[in-house]
């Protein structure tokens, strides 16, 4: 059967339907006004759990069963444990053993450690992935081996799809470095600290059922809570949610390549001379070797000129933390943390603020990139 396509505003022919669900072709910048709802999915009620607020169940399998795991459900996870994630694969291992078929995995990103999911794509447990697909997982998808059609979603686009009901999450399984029995959770503390878990916000607010998985159960209240227990159905305690040295790098390093350092140096001085870099600038810095080096040169310029960045938007690294600590940056608004210095900073410094990606990069949020004195690199 031929696929029905339509010409979008960028002049491309795109399908009107993917995986049996309608999709909206690009209409042009500012033309689409999505209708997100602030309510819709069921929220747990106090009669659902014991009077003492303890939602702990003994295993992830039990939690999945209680959530009513069945064929064709959409299961979401976040990627804050990066390449050290031990939770996502476990979900599909259990689902496969339980004989569940045709699940949709909806991660905020995937890493090489998630390659075992290929096995569950092969045996039919998982029908498709909607999210990012890299490395061997990406190759598997590119080779057309996945049963469903892959949908690649940007971080912001993913949140918007959840808010607007384009993707309905049946069960969100959210790993948390610290959590209390009521389900309040955060990205710091414990052996698997990853700094922040802001990518999980849309998931815990909009999923029909929410499971928090932790290896560090703390007394109520787990504060400051990034996941609010009110929205959580079950809490599972496991030995280990992640492999610490694969979650954040011990230290992020700027490039040592002289050519790349030169590119970084020239970029920073271009930003200065073109007037883009100025007092009160808001900025974002990547975690790659060259962009980190740009951050170092930019920091030098800020220092020499006596300028201060209003805020930096994380992914944070030690180089941004240095700007904050040495007074060249007012705040770090942080959606994800890349190294141990940043984990330390977010625990210690009140001006280093967890800032869910929920609040950026999509139709319903503050558009940092479009703001007139902002820039990204």
């Amino acid at each position, binding site marked *: 059967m031929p696929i029905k396509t339509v010409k979008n505003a960028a002049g491309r022919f795109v399908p009107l339907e993917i995986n049996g669900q309608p999709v909206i072709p690009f209409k042009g910048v500012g033309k689409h006004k999505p209708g997100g709802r602030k309510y819709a999915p069921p929220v747990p009620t106090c009669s659902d759990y014991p009077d003492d607020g303890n939602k702990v169940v003994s295993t992830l399998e039990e939690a999945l069963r209680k959530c009513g795991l069945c064929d064709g459900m959409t299961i979401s996870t976040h990627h804050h444990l990066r390449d050290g994630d031990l939770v996502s694969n476990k979900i599909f291992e259990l689902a496969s053993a339980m004989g569940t078929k045709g699940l949709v995995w909806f991660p905020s990103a995937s890493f090489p450690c998630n390659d075992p999911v290929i096995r569950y794509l092969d045996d039919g447990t998982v029908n498709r992935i909607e999210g990012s697909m890299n490395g061997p997982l990406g190759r598997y998808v590119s080779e057309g081996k996945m049963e469903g059609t892959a949908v690649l979603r940007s971080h912001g686009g993913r949140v918007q799809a959840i808010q607007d009901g384009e993707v309905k999450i049946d069960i969100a399984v959210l790993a948390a470095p610290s959590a209390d029995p009521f389900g309040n959770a955060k990205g710091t503390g414990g052996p698997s600290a990853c700094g922040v878990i802001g990518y999980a916000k849309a998931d815990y607010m909009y999923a029909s059922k929410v499971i928090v998985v932790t290896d560090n159960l703390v007394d109520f209240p787990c504060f400051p809570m990034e996941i609010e227990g009110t929205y959580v159905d079950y809490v599972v305690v496991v030995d280990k949610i992640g492999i610490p040295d694969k979650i954040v790098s011990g230290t992020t390093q700027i490039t*040592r390549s*002289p*050519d790349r*350092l*030169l590119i970084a140096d020239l970029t920073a001085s271009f930003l200065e001379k073109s007037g883009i870099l100025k007092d009160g600038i808001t900025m974002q810095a990547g975690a790659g070797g060259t962009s980190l080096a740009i951050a170092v040169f930019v920091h030098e310029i800020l220092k020499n000129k006596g300028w201060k960045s209003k805020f930096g938007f994380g992914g944070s690294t030690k180089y941004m933390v240095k700007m904050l600590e040495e007074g060249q940056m007012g705040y770090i608004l942080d959606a994800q943390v890349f190294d141990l210095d940043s984990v330390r900073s977010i625990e210690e410094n009140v001006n280093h603020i967890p800032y869910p990606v929920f609040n950026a990069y999509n139709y319903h949020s503050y558009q940092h990139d479009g703001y007139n004195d902002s820039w990204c690199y």
Partner: protein
Amino acid sequence: MKKNIAVAGNSGPKVRSDCEILLELKSDGGITIDLISKVKVLYGESIKNLINEILDLFGIEHARVKITDTGALPFVLAARMESAIKQLISTDLEYLPEFLTINNYSTTRERFRFSRLYLPGNAPGLMINAGLHSADGIILDLEDSVAPSKKDEARILVRNALRQISFNGAERMVRINQGEMGLEDLNFVIPHNVNLILIPKCESPEYVKQVERKIGTIRKKFNISNQVYLMPIIESALGVENSFDIALGSDNVVALAIGLEDYTADLGVARTIEGNESLYARSRIVVAAKAARIQPIDSVFSDVADTDALKNNVKTSKALGFEGMGCIHPRQISVIKQGFAPDRSEIEKSEKIVMAFEEARKKGLGVVALGSKMIDPPVVARAQKIIDLAVSLNLISGDWINEVRSLEN
């Protein structure tokens, strides 16, 4: 039995922008070329054409060629092929890639030589982008950075690099080997516009004269008008003792450098960060160079990762009177250049002194005073030197006096 298989160049997991060529001469069967390269689809044809052209020049009709390529540019492929051929055939022929006209510039005696970047003569990957980093000079090194077994192929590679790589206006330098081998090196490089020759482990003015004579002969033969300057490197106790004579060894000596690794080895002492063991030698070189009205140039700083230590080292070096330093990594260049250039406070102080001197001269006063301090003529001369340097480095404008005055008013 006559050798009929030769290998030239480099390959391996860490090698980039190079190739290894195996050449086997045959008695029949024509030319077969076996190419292993990531860019074979894009450049396979042109690589094979180049190899055929070179074999043709040297009159080779039957051979097996195996090329393991890691992204070699044509001048590298040509150099490796020529090296392999010359291991098997005795010939005076050369396969010369086109000489880029942009490379045909000369330099002056007085130009700054704050930073000069060493490039190993047999590592093409480090040469290609070297000109981007704005070093005052680029040194293609045939001496210590080249393994003894690779000396021949480095000569051909350096020759081709001089013809094909643009160093963006940096002074084009070559460090030759010691003794007879060094004199032979000159045949490979002088015809291809070298601005300056570094003479390593120089111990006598006689050797400087020998180098000078050899360069003269080659320049005459190839009708070269651009000047070739000399920078002897003093690396032994004997060299230090003879440094003033070496500095005067030829009119073309424009700088005297010191090499501390070999010098400390000659003394039988360890080289330290503080450098007390070489203080005498360094000062002696500075004095010899200044007496001969040439530039004293300091030894390289070998801890590439430690920028702060390099900064301190440059500070000391400048304070001793040196006017430049070698670099073994591009990231040292800006640190060294900034370190040797006059800083803001030096410039401001010098401006005040020179202006006070001008005032006094206008008023016909014999004595210059700045505030309550008397200023001696040598102090004025030094201030003027710093001002000249700052102007020529574009740190202040040539019209600085009027600019300072307008600010004061």
